[in-house]
């Protein structure tokens, strides 16, 4: 031990003797700059060390299920937009797929391709926002601005396809709201390399950044066994070394036909979660390119007059089309799936997003349960925070990528 080290040990001993250690209660949130929504984290600390913590949620609860039960099957898609508002298209698609299974219809191949294409663009937007926001909270504001630029490209593509950036209301039961606009493919091929450039820049800024590594490595580590026990899904589970991706484990839509890898981490700490998200964006981009290459021609909506709305030209030009439209939108008419139940899982930005729908044969869902991916993640915050410093709350919370709308529903 050098003299300098001895000096420090001496100081610590003196401090332990003279300064009484007392537990302190600290409230983070409900409204706190580092909280991505409204959530309250309560911690008890001795010095800087967290000895106990608890989470309070429900500030954004707005009765998603009750609202869906009171409206028709097709109206529910607008409520699903508001669940995960960073990647709403995945929510739309998940809900519509569940109802389609109840109805027993399949949608044309082009419709499936368009759904997957836009879902993957949304996933890139979701992950890049998560990474950027988490980096900003650690002081890397440049990274955040770069990611916002990339997200803007993704949103521009989504906006050109469905007219909205966040509240997309894109999927319909039996298809999608509209086919891709003209020139979408070339736009996509123009924007995707720009997003890839941003990911490269982000990689240069963060992956070997000493400050970033020090703040994230071995922080909030969860082993694979614990992650399964705590019900994790998505990037957090994969960062812990468990290769569970709904797109691979239970392929839905047309995901079987794509070539993509499922990245897996080793430590399950914040840094691994960041790496997994970065790699997933590259894989999503791979799927986007494959989609564009293989995009078939043809209709996007199922040709079933009892489910899909008629073309607007039909509605305005002939009586049959008008009647068909009314039969689908009037209260008490509309889609009537036969009585039954279905659970449809999809891979959302944060993990498995499941829709459990129950039909009693009427035009309104009897029950529509959304299995939110970040609910078990937020539940595990006390587990992850244990024996960490107060300053580690921010990177751990950032790595979860909590979405208030999805958590509280």
């Amino acid at each position, binding site marked *: 031990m050098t003299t300098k080290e001895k000096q420090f040990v001496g100081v610590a001993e003196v401090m332990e003797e003279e300064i009484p250690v007392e*537990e302190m*209660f600290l409230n983070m949130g409900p409204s706190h700059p580092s909280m991505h929504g409204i959530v309250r984290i*309560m911690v*008890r600390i001795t010095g800087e060390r967290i*000895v*106990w*913590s*608890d989470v309070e*949620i*429900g500030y954004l*609860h707005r*009765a998603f*299920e*009750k*609202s869906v039960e*009171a409206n028709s099957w097709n109206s529910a898609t607008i409520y699903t937009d508001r669940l995960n508002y960073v990647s709403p298209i995945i929510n739309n698609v998940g809900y519509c797929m569940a109802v389609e*299974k*109840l109805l*027993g*219809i*399949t949608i*044309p*191949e082009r419709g499936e391709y368009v759904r997957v294409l836009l879902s993957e663009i949304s996933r890139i937007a979701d992950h890049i926002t998560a990474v950027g926001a988490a980096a900003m909270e650690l002081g890397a504001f440049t990274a955040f601005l770069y990611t916002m630029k990339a997200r803007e490209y993704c949103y521009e593509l989504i906006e050109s396809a469905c007219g909205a950036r966040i509240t997309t209301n894109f999927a319909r039961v039996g298809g999608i709201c509209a086919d891709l606009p003209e020139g979408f493919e070339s736009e996509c091929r123009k924007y995707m390399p720009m997003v890839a450039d941003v990911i490269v820049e982000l990689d240069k800024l963060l992956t070997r950044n000493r400050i970033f590594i020090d703040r994230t490595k071995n922080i909030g580590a969860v082993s694979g066994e614990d992650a*399964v*026990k*705590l*019900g994790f899904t998505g990037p957090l589970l994969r960062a812990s070394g*468990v290769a*569970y991706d709904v797109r691979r*484990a*239970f392929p839905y839509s047309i995901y079987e036909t794509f070539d993509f890898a499922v990245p897996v981490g080793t430590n399950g700490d914040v840094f691994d979660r960041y790496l997994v998200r970065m790699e997933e964006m590259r894989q999503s981009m791979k799927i986007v390119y494959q989609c564009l290459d293989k995009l078939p021609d*043809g*209709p996007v909506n*199922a*040709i*079933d007059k*009892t*489910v899909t709305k008629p073309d607007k030209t039909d509605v305005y030009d002939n009586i049959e089309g008008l009647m068909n439209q009314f039969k689908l939108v009037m209260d008490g008419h509309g889609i009537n799936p*036969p009585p*039954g*139940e*279905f*659970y449809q*899982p999809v891979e959302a930005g944060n993990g*498995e997003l*499941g829709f*459990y729908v*129950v039909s009693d044969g009427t035009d309104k869902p009897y*029950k529509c*349960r959304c*299995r939110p991916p970040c*609910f*078990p993640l937020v*539940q*595990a915050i*006390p*587990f992850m925070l*244990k024996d960490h410093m107060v300053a580690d709350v921010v990177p751990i919370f950032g790595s979860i990528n909590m979405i208030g709308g999805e958590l*509280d*529903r």
Partner: protein
Amino acid sequence: MLVTPPNRLLRLVIYKNNIMDIPAYIERLEEKIGTDNLQTNYPHDQLTITVSRDKIQEALQFLRDDDEALFDHFMDLTAVDYIGKQPRFQVVIHLVSIPKSQRIRIKINIDDDSAEMPTITGIYPAADWFERECYDLYGIRFAGHPNLKRIMLYDEFEGYPLRKDYPIRKRQPRVELRKPEVRRSDETVEPPR
């Protein structure tokens, strides 16, 4: 054209045929908890079992540990209110087996009078908040839960909003301004483990 018309009659026939291939672990489970306590069916090709309330913990323990089942991952817990029917509530649990890549749905029928079932947090710790949510919105009590209190709504909320007899436009009485509570670490509950 790549469109399959909805042919509901055809579908029913297919699903009836599927009932034939029940997995072996379900048969073992049947032996373990008794035939009266278990029903199996395949609505829309999704394996669904209905377990009686008293045997749920035993059944879940079996499904988690059996070598062929290995349902290690808890996915979802919710309830459905079939008002006017007996029993009224149905708690629905979804499990996933990552090693075997399979899914199962477990249902437990619960009558209105007691609205109570044993907690499953002992077997799946991740079910903690899901059970709290179910209690909060449906009023189903989970006996033995370590911290069963409201999660989405505030403590003074009257009624259970997702029950079908709760009117959608019902208003709640105003709540007195509370003094901020001071929590102590010795009163609190351990995080799920």
